[in-house]
């Protein structure tokens, strides 16, 4: 594709416990770029560094070495506050265990990224959130708390929340990990649909080879290195 990369990683490394006897490097020079509209799966065995890589791309952790650009901006030079802002506005997270705020309704959960970004809720944010809930088929459940929703419904709310600010990048960490096959297919289809609609880049960590095969591209991580990167076999 000819479009500009949404994320670009060059020689990225990550080590923990730097300078101590138990120093361990978990990522050894990752080169990866993801273009607008791309729908990629990140696979690999447990302990291969998938989650760490996702956290670094999601700006939740900082890399030890190498370069990470998001939307063309080199993140190494950004301050803590700028990182936080960039994360809020351009990245949407979908976690394995949905991670909704139990004290808030589904609608409020979906509005939350906007509340954080703009400082307070507004009518536009509420309208957008309702639209998104409608799109994931949960408009009728907008005022329910997460505890009153099923696992699949909770994950749909989480997806709606990830999309609230129309991010350029969606990062999903085993979004279907704790759902039954049927529901998992639904959630996956939903992500795919939004990816096509809004042309955002998606990077999905998954253990499920069936789902990975349905992505455009599969990045395989083994022992902190990219072992394979290519289009899905289909």
């Amino acid at each position, binding site marked *: 594709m000819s479009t500009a990369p949404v994320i670009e990683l060059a020689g990225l490394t990550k080590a923990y416990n730097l300078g101590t006897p138990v120093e361990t490097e978990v990522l050894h020079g990752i080169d990866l770029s993801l273009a607008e509209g791309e729908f990629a799966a990140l696979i690999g065995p447990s302990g291969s560094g998938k989650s760490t890589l996702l956290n670094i791309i*999601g700006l*939740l952790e900082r890399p030890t070495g190498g370069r990470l650009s998001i939307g063309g901006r080199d993140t190494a030079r950004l301050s803590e506050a700028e990182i936080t802002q960039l994360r809020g506005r351009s990245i949407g997270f979908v976690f394995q265990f949905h991670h909704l705020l139990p004290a808030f309704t589904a609608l409020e959960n979906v509005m939350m990224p906007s509340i*954080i970004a703009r400082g307070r809720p507004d009518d536009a944010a509420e309208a957008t959130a309702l639209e998104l809930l409608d799109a994931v088929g949960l408009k009728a459940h907008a005022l329910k708390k997460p505890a009153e929703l099923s696992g699949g419904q909770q994950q749909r709310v989480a997806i709606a929340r990830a999309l609230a600010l129309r991010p350029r990048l969606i990062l999903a960490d085993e979004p279907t990990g704790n759902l039954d096959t049927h529901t998992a297919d639904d959630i996956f289809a939903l992500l795919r649909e939004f990816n096509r609609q809004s042309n955002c880049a998606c990077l999905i960590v998954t253990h499920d080879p069936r789902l990975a095969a349905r992505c455009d591209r599969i990045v395989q991580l083994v022992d902190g290195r990219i072992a394979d990167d290519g289009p899905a076999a289909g």
Partner: protein
Amino acid sequence: MKFRLPFAPIVALRFLREGRMQTLLILAGTTGGVAVIVFLTQLITQLQAQIVDRVLGSQAHVVIRPAEEVNRRAIDDAGFASIVEPRAQRLRSIDQWENIARLAADMPGVTAVSPVVTGPAFAVRGQASKSVALMGVDAERYRRIVRMEEYMVAGRFAVEGTRAVIGSELAKDLGIRMDDKLRVALPNGRDELLQVGGIFDIGNKDLNRRWVFVTLPLAQSLLDLPGGVSNLDLTVADIFEAQPVADRLRGATSLNVESWMQTNAQLLAALRNQSVSNNLIRSFVVIIVALGIASVLVVSVVQKQKEIGILRAMGASRAMILQVFLIQGAVVGAVGSVLGSALAFTLLNVFSAIYRNADGQPLFAAELEPRFIAMAALVATAVGLLSALIPARRAARMDPVQAIRS
């Protein structure tokens, strides 16, 4: 358009509402603490004001008397040994008392000046005689020193000619009723027949037995002080400014000037000690409440780790998380102060119904001064905010990745 709170208060209030039991406990603690402080402060302020009021009910705030007479050595030389005996103080007038009275009246803070002639006498009726203090006053002016009209049980506080006002105990002791005659005899041999025009009960049996009010000229002639006065009684605007006023007057006149604060030094010391112990109690309550709020919020931060991580992942800054927990502390303090003030008001009502004076009147009024409520609200909110500081900083420093994983 509906009103919408900003991010931090929304999340803070929701967290408080979610942690129901914790919030209730922390609120109960704060409410109790505020109630104790407000109740105690109001009670002690009222009781102290009452005690001072009672003491000053029968006293001048400042009294000016002639300087004491002292013996001087004729030969002022260190080479001679001498024994100087203290002199007996005879009754004397204040020199040029009218000028001094004018000077005192012009002094800032002084609201009333009353000349008084006072000396010892016997009240005689039939075979009975009682030692009394003859008080020559100008009734109009003296009323502004001691509110005598409030204490009258019979007649009015007015002296003219030979009409006198005496205390209820003296009247009882001598079997005197209104308009009865009463003879006063003085050590210098003079005597006068008085007619009782009023009887007072000042709330102090000793004074009720001793004070006999007559006109200024009558007392002057009976006590051999023609045109003179033995002391000037003063009222000041702020009773706790009596000492500085007395000091200034002493400096200006070199007379013997005494404030009620010197006369009642022991009472003042007692009041001061009471205030100190009250402050001590209040400080401890504040510390305990602060520790309570802090410990509950510390637990809350740990419980809310995951939520904090989620909020951070969605772009909430450290400052926003800090605010969320600071606001929780402040809200607990503010709500606690409102509930605590209400509880204190209830306590005041209950205790004012239970505790009564010797005369059956409530010991204190069941009212709460707005300034104490304002003070409680301010202090409690500030304490809530401060005690939330440590938990809030902990929350803000949390690593979002660790928080989400936990």
